[in-house]
């Protein structure tokens, strides 16, 4: 018997640079509360948060949709770090509780053993800053990664100035770096009203709150306050286009819609603004949970795919917990940030106890899911927005900005334009013919059309691609499998990911393909034995 194949991964995975008993990902209310709770229970905790993210990342709308509306101050990393700390007083409390707080640090991967991977020494996260990447091992993980923006396309949405509520809020508060003076808010629910209020507080004019629905979806009292401050409300309206002479948004054209979402002819009105903010909902950030193998399920009322958690916020993976908006986002949570904190404390306590900390007082851990009704399901609401946008803006609108795939090209499953491919066979293929062969699969259509394959890692289009496909296939999103997430879940440069800690064996035994001595031997000279590589075959296989 021989030792393990020297060209296999055995012995080549670098040990983590550090090992901490508990890593908490995300320093929002839930994450900070979790970290503090666990630290107070005596656990060594590392709390990681990517903010402040650098300008280049923001420019790609990662992790939130910033819509190119960052001012120059975001290039000053030291200043941004100061602001992030200053605007989140909980961080100081975490630090005082002994938590190791790592800001400006991306979590780009999670690596765990499973059916197809068994050679990892421990479960690890891949971390990175602007300069380098490293691995940290953990015994327990709490994911408090929050929620991200939902954007829908309209003609001109590629112009600078199309933001998401999450991106706008981050620029207004944490970064204090919003480069917009006059914003149109799309949506009228709690998220939209809250975003509008925040904008006004920070001296940004709100040129209109636009709602495709015939009714105000958020709190009437708050809406009245906003209206009293001069904010126009445009119910039964949609956005027809954004205009501007350069690559910037300078105005939007709004149009009133009939009950079926179709535009009312002649009702167009142009409103000057330099930003449009989508505030129709947020989607839980489940990338990391997916990578660690936690079971996810689709619950529309919670924003889509969410982890299955028990009463103590433990996921289906015994070592991984989840808390805050990534367990499920609902607009009612905006009014009660204490819910997220309570979840964080519960997860922190549960994680600490699973590591041997003394059992504490039973925390109130039951998540409060707001009164459920079909009207609360954001996907139906997004669908009405989408219908109105299609009716007003047509099919020749990019759904995927990175790859420039239009709505039409997506639902007709056309190969990308740069191939300039035409054939009668290809013309006969469509989503309809694809559906005859099997159920709708967003990843499959992504491969064919490239929608969602760009550098923003589908942050701007994942939901609208799903919604459009479901609409075209006459099905619903819950019936489409979760499109996968792959590391790195943040787009990082090669020279940042470059491992400084690579074991020598990785370089010494590196082969491009298996290193089986006979695999690439010319067939007219081939030998067939299972044997050690000869000097000759070694030359064929190995470049070291």
């Amino acid at each position, binding site marked *: 018997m021989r030792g393990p194949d020297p060209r296999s991964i055995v012995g080549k995975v670098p040990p983590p640079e550090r090992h901490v008993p508990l890593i908490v990902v995300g320093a929002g209310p839930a994450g900070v509360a979790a970290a503090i709770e666990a630290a107070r229970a005596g656990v060594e905790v590392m709390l990681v948060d990517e903010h402040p993210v650098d300008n280049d990342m923001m420019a790609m709308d990662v992790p939130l949709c910033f819509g190119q509306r960052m001012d120059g101050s975001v290039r000053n990393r030291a200043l941004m770090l100061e602001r992030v700390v200053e605007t989140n007083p909980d961080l100081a409390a975490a630090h005082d509780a002994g938590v190791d707080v790592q800001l400006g640090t991306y979590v780009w991967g999670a690596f765990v053993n499973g059916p197809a991977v068994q050679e990892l020494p421990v479960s690890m996260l891949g971390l990175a800053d602007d300069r380098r990447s490293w691995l940290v091992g953990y015994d327990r993980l709490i994911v408090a990664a929050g929620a991200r923006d939902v954007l829908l396309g309209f003609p001109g949405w590629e112009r600078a100035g199309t933001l998401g509520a999450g991106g706008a809020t981050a620029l207004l508060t944490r970064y204090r770096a919003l480069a917009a003076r006059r914003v149109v808010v799309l949506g009228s629910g709690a998220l939209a009203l809250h975003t509008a209020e925040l904008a006004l507080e920070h001296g940004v004019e709100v040129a209109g709150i636009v709602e495709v629905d015939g009714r105000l979806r958020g709190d009437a009292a708050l809406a009245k306050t906003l209206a009293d401050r001069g904010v126009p409300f445009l119910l039964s309206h949609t956005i027809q286009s954004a205009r501007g002479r350069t690559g910037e948004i300078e105005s939007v054209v709004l149009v009133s819609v009939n009950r079926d979402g179709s535009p009312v002819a002649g009702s167009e009105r142009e409103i000057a603004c330099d930003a449009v903010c989508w505030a129709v909902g947020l989607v839980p950030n489940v990338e990391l949970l997916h990578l660690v193998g936690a079971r996810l399920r689709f619950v529309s009322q919670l924003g889509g795919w969410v982890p299955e958690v028990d009463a103590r916020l433990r996921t289906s993976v015994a070592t991984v917990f989840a808390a805050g908006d990534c367990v499920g986002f609902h607009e009612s949570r905006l009014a009660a940030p204490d819910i997220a904190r309570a979840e964080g404390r519960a997860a922190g306590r549960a994680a600490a106890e699973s590591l041997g900390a003394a059992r504490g007082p039973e925390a109130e851990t039951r998540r409060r899911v707001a009164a459920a009704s079909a009207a609360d399901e954001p996907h139906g609401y997004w669908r009405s927005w989408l219908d109105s946008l299609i009716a007003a803006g047509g099919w020749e609108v990019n759904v995927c900005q990175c*790859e420039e795939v239009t709505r039409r090209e997506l639902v007709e499953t056309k190969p990308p334009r740069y191939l300039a491919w035409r054939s009668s066979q290809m013309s006969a293929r469509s989503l309809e013919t694809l559906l005859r062969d099997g159920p709708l699969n967003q990843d499959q259509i992504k491969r064919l059309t490239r929608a969602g394959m760009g550098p923003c*890692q589908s942050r701007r289009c994942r939901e609208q691609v799903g919604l459009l496909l479901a609409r075209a296939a006459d099905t619903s999103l819950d019936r489409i499998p979760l499109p996968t997430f792959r590391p790195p879940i943040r787009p990082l440069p*090669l020279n940042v*990911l470059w491992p400084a800690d690579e074991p020598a064996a990785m370089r010494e035994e*590196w082969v491009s393909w298996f290193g089986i001595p006979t695999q690439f*031997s010319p*067939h007219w000279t081939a030998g067939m034995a299972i044997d050690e590589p000869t000097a000759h075959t070694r030359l064929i296989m190995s470049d070291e």
Partner: protein
Amino acid sequence: MAGMARTNGASVVIVGGGVTGLSAGWWLARVGVDVLVLEKGIVGWEASGRNGGGATHVYSPFGLEEQRLWPQMDELLGYPTEYQSCRIGIALSETQLALARRWAEIGETRGFRWELLDRRQLKELVPIVGDNAIGGTYLHFGGHANPQRTVQGYAWALQDHGGRILQHTTVTGLTQRGGRITAVETTRGAFGADVVVIAAGPQTGAFADMLGAWLPLAPARVEMVATEPIPLMRVGGVAGNGLYGRQTLRGNLVYGGGPHEWINVPDMTTPDHANTPLVRSLARRLAELLPGAAHVRLIRSWSGLVENTPDGLPVVERLAQPDNVVIATMSSVGFGLSPAVGRAISELVRHGRCQFADLGALALGRFADTPRDWRERAGWAAASPAIEAAAGGDD
């Protein structure tokens, strides 16, 4: 072929909708054979649709046919494969240069043309090469294609010729009667067949087992990475430094290489695709290969399952017993050779022998004396459960 079209069966049933099975099915359908492909998931979903896309395997018995067919594939299929011809090998060391030359010389032996490049010539062709490169090779043969688009092209073209594909259909057994397979049993009922082609990737060994044939196969996981797009290079088929891959026509750099992990695939399911920190080492290798792209962002990675025979060579054979079965595994090198091997399989099905290549070296019989514990002996066994248990206890 009797062409016995049955509602619940086909003249030829192909087990496995990977690139080998699809190509075989397409070649058969082209000549009017009633063919049915059974696929447990989506066509080309595993390593067939996620690989380096290389089409430069002139060392293989299928090599000349591979070179002949690829330039025609777009037209033959009627769908885009994104095939691009020629390859450039970049060497960062004398050993790497010797390896690149060796590949080139194997091609030369078969009558193909190549040039040795010095650093200046290399930089003219590939401006993002760095001063760490010592030279390279320019192969005026070989090439690469887009695996995802190609597998879908095979599947669609097969259907255009009247062939059928059943996705989400797992084969659970093979019915034998009178020394022949008469039907293929699946999760969606049994399908009668005159001839059965088994091209089931890592699971091919398990099917051979059902037929009493010994096909030693070791499944393994391999990984690749993809960057954001960069401006198109004159030749996209650029590789070296222990990496295989290409620049896609969209501009992404897509590369793989480095250590594999031997694993077990216990049944007919495929474990979730998972990556390891190897993605960082791939990033490093790529930044070394193309220093002018070191700032480019990595946006994706993936892993795929492939299978290897003990000698790393394919098995493509029409069995003697039962005599209506063709078994095919490409031993982890299937995509580029798929146009040729599909044609070979179609000939084995129709004529009992391959007319354009001698497949003698690829017969199953060569493993008759391979011991059952060959994986352990070769060091190719999957990690012991003890390692798994020690690794953290995630459930």
